[in-house]
């Protein structure tokens, strides 16, 4: 019988320590910015990972493994809550995605009219206000740098769906951030 892969006693703690900041950051965004909820989610996910750590064969894949557990733990929580008020109406078909892409008009980006600090705060706030499904796609790819394929696996949706969610997430972000751009510009000129 094949023996399970031996795991050094501190390997799990080291793995968590290495990725703790990004796991916490992602938990915070997944729950929409609530610090207590984020810590709760993080702890739940990390303890689940601890239980299954001996199943992680490739230590090099530890980061995406941890994130997959975090994301799925969050999905389970959201599904368990079941009466989530903000359901994504529907993912786009290829045709609808193409139409949305074609309708994108060049516009200023947040970085062009907000100063660094203001920009960071407002982007994080706008991110937290996004639809949770769109937010998860943007967080995993734009912030944590996972590929679209990895994000699709974590969120258990097709790659094409992730593509349209990323696009819609960015589009909604830009809309939220540029709605009051003229007022912000005027304020900065004063």
């Amino acid at each position, binding site marked *: 019988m094949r*023996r*399970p*892969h*031996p*795991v*050094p*006693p*501190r390997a*799990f*703690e080291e793995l*968590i*320590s290495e990725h*703790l*900041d990004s*796991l916490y*950051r992602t938990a*915070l*965004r997944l729950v929409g910015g609530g610090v207590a909820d984020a*810590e709760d989610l*993080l*702890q739940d996910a*990390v*303890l689940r990972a*601890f*239980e299954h*750590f*001996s199943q992680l064969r490739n230590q090099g894949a530890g980061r995406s493994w941890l994130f997959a557990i975090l994301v799925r733990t969050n999905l389970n929580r959201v599904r368990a809550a079941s009466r989530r008020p903000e359901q994504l109406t529907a993912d786009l078909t*290829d045709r609808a*995605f*193409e*139409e*949305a*892409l*074609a309708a*994108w008009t*060049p*516009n200023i*980006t*947040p*970085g062009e009219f907000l100063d660094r600090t203001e920009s*960071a*705060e407002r*982007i*994080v706030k706008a*991110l937290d206000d996004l639809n949770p499904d769109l937010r998860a796609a*943007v*967080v995993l*790819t*734009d*912030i944590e*740098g996972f*590929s*679209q*394929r990895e994000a699709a696996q974590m969120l258990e949706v097709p790659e094409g769906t*992730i*593509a349209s969610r*990323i*696009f819609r997430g*960015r589009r909604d*972000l830009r809309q939220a951030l540029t709605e009051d751009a003229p007022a912000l510009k005027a304020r900065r000129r004063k």
Partner: protein
Amino acid sequence: MNSECGRARRELWPDNGPRSVTPQVVEAQRHVAGCASCAEFFEGMRRLSDDVRRSASRTVAPLEVRDRLFKAISRARTQTGARVRPNAALVGAGASAAILLLIFGIKAFSGDNPSAPRSLIPVLVEEHARARGEAGIRSSNPSEIARWLNGRLSFAMQVPVFAEASLRGARVVEVEKRRSALIEYGLGNDLVSYFVVAGYARARTPSAPSLVETVWDGYHVVSWTEPGLLHAFVGNVSESKLRLLARKCIEQAGTMKVAFSGP
């Protein structure tokens, strides 16, 4: 801007990663090369993605979150024990621990040779396992570490130096409500923690400290006492290496005065 733009943008969607050069991709690339609107679209996507990444990637986990999380892991480790890592080496380690406890237990926990109480070993191991990335002082300078510790402890101490192990830093830890010193050493690729805990073994102590070896949760622990203080080395290294460090530490005690000044 038309349906061709939408098709080209979907075909060349920037987050898709490497793609095969299909006729559709070639056609989309040809379209984008001649379409200012599509070029702006891709540039806009890139800038927006950069803005989001720059803004939201600054958050770090607060220390108290880190602390609570590692304590939860330690509790889970204690509760699940070998079930979490059911491999032969650790089963062997567990058996060794049981044998060692049988051999050394009576000696270790009797009044003749007061040492770490049974409850203390898991605490030391837990603190050792949490060592990485914790707040404290990161330094390889023994004087600097000693100064840092002496400003935070109720007993004075100097920091032992070993040729075999490199000094990494130190922190102050609570061990059963006693502020204690934890000094970290690198031993090859492993981390070894040296604890000095006040308030133990103030009873009769042998003139020559005797070392007590224990294994807990896969970690080796070598401890000894002197009036008022408990010393322990903890690490995932062989007990012979820990014993060597412990002996050198005791040897250095002649010049390294550890004066106890109260519980």
